[in-house]
């Protein structure tokens, strides 16, 4: 088991109270697993990633525990987390294109980054150059400023940087969203390649684009309004989802080959709830066609089939 998260609660502090952006998440990621994390904007997927690596105000740790390779992550302690960041757990941020220091040549910036983690550029450099080749960047980029690179090149550079010390867990936050489809494919396949070559052990890919996840991920986890809705293998999520939200979400995605004149797709009526004072019980209740009395309680995230977790009272899990 690479990552184990148990009942993790992280809220945002605001002047009008706590926003419950992540309210009780429990899940595991196996060694070598690429997990896709999908959901609408504001569902807490980025909050989850940030709280695993850099939990700073306005984020507030409320409860829960996180284990990485059997070791407990002190996620609430900024200083202790320094030992893990970049070495054990790393992130390719959402705006990776702006993540490079514009006033430093990339090679120099890399050396400084490594020095801050007590590693030497000299030891890592041959590997760095090999990896640049792998992602299709020339060796010259180390002597360039970020401004000289295109968006896609910067993205690949950040990917190489983030994984340079072979972290156990890599989180990639919306890294393909700003790219063109052809570049998108190349970047997504590089992520898989990184896992196959064991630069990273396991990975969380965060995106709102489920069709990308179907191409690269092993499992997909769907979040809704700060809670987990469903986690299963990608085939199961796409072909036989069990949670009503997942079902409606999957069926609302337009595909090449579907035209409005033949098949009119349906959206999900309503809007996600406010997380400042979220409604009691299942947060999808107001938009759910199957909702009934029991939904006033929070449904547990239970295993309905091996490897298939669902949080819905309509599912005959162990607890039903």
């Amino acid at each position, binding site marked *: 088991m690479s990552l184990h998260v148990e009942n993790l609660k992280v809220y945002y502090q605001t002047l009008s109270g706590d926003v419950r952006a992540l309210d009780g998440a429990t899940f595991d990621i196996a060694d070598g697993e690429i997990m896709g994390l999908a959901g*609408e*904007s504001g569902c807490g997927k980025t909050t989850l990633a940030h709280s695993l690596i850099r939990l700073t105000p306005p984020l507030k740790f409320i409860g829960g525990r996180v284990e990485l390779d059997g070791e407990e992550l002190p996620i609430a302690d900024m200083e202790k987390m320094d030992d893990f960041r970049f070495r054990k757990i790393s992130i390719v941020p959402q705006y990776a294109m702006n993540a490079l220091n514009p006033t430093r040549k990339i090679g120099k910036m890399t050396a400084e980054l490594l020095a801050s983690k007590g590693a030497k550029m000299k030891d890592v450099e041959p590997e760095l150059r090999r990896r640049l080749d792998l992602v*299709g960047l020339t060796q010259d980029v180390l002597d360039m400023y970020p401004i000289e690179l295109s968006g*896609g090149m910067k993205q690949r550079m950040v990917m190489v940087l983030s994984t340079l010390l072979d972290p156990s867990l890599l989180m990639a936050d919306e890294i393909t969203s700003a790219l*063109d*489809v*052809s*570049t*998108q*494919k*190349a970047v*997504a*396949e590089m992520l898989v390649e990184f896992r196959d070559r064991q630069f990273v052990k396991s990975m969380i890919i965060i995106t*709102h*684009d*489920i*069709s*990308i996840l*179907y*191409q690269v991920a092993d499992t997909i986890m769907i979040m809704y309004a700060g809670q987990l809705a469903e986690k299963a293998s990608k085939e199961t999520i*796409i072909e036989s989802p069990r949670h009503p939200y997942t079902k*409606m*979400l*999957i069926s*609302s*995605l*337009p*595909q*090449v*080959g*579907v*035209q*409005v*004149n033949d098949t*009119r*797709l*349906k*959206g*999900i009526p309503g*809007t996600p709830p406010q997380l400042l004072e979220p409604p009691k019980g299942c947060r999808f209740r107001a938009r759910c066609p199957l909702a009934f009395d029991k939904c006033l309680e929070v449904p547990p995230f239970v295993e309905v089939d091996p490897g298939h977790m669902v949080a819905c009272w309509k599912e005959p899990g162990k607890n039903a």
Partner: protein
Amino acid sequence: MLKLQGISKTYKVGTFGGKELHAVCDVDLEVGTGEVVSLIGESGSGKTTIGKMVLKLISITSGSAFFKDIDITTIEGRELKEYYRNVQGVFQDPFSSYNPIFKADRVFAMVKEEFYPDMKPEAWAEKVDQCLKDVGLNPPDVLGKFPHQLSGGQLQRFLIARALLLETEFLVADEIISMLDASRRIDVLNLLADLKKKGLSILFITHDLSLAYYISDQAVILYRGSIVEMGSTERVYFNPQHPYTKMLMATVPRLDQEWEDIEIAIREKQLPIGQGCVYFGRCPFATDQCSLERPQLEQIESNHQVACFSCKRGS
């Protein structure tokens, strides 16, 4: 309804404006009444530039554009205002289309001031209500609110309602879906489809191939400012001929099948601007002819045109 003939947009770049950048190069395009035409391309392909030229937000460097047989390149003053009554645009980011200091319905008030100054307030309010209902919003829920109190989908539909108030006949929709959540996207697309049935023509600008397929009658594939392939949506999607279109179609992430293994050239070598085929640098089938001459759009079957020498050679 709208007819573009050989329009180009050239920007002067460099320190003293000595270099030229061809954002759009010699594009011919036609949009009929009640027709949805998708402009599909990657970033930098000139799709937004075309949209902005149609809306006269930027000038057309060369070529001509006609809207109902009126040459729009030269119109100004009263005629221009009349043109905007018929042609409106909705853009990608709904949040930046509003002034955050004012309430969102100010966009409606401005329409009234400019175009319907004589209308009675009651009649106007009724008209606003009707348009909001037409785009699937509940008027009491959304009127009198500030932009930050409304969701992206609501704001986007607000803007479409604004276009409807003017009884617009032609809508330029520039990436209007991209900022919306998956569960809301389809509602806006369905709305456009309904409006299309009522006779609205739409120039739908997008980089998302599956969205374009869902709604459009005609698809136009752009690469670096030139049309490489155009025709009816089915023909372009299921019988792509240009190497670029083929590559695009193969890289669309799908839910029913995984990516095939195809080579994607990331590094590209480029020809001097204005010489040869725009796709030369990335094309696996490029020949010497492609580096010297620019291929013209050729009809390969009814309602399907491709600009590529290799397709002609093949047939």
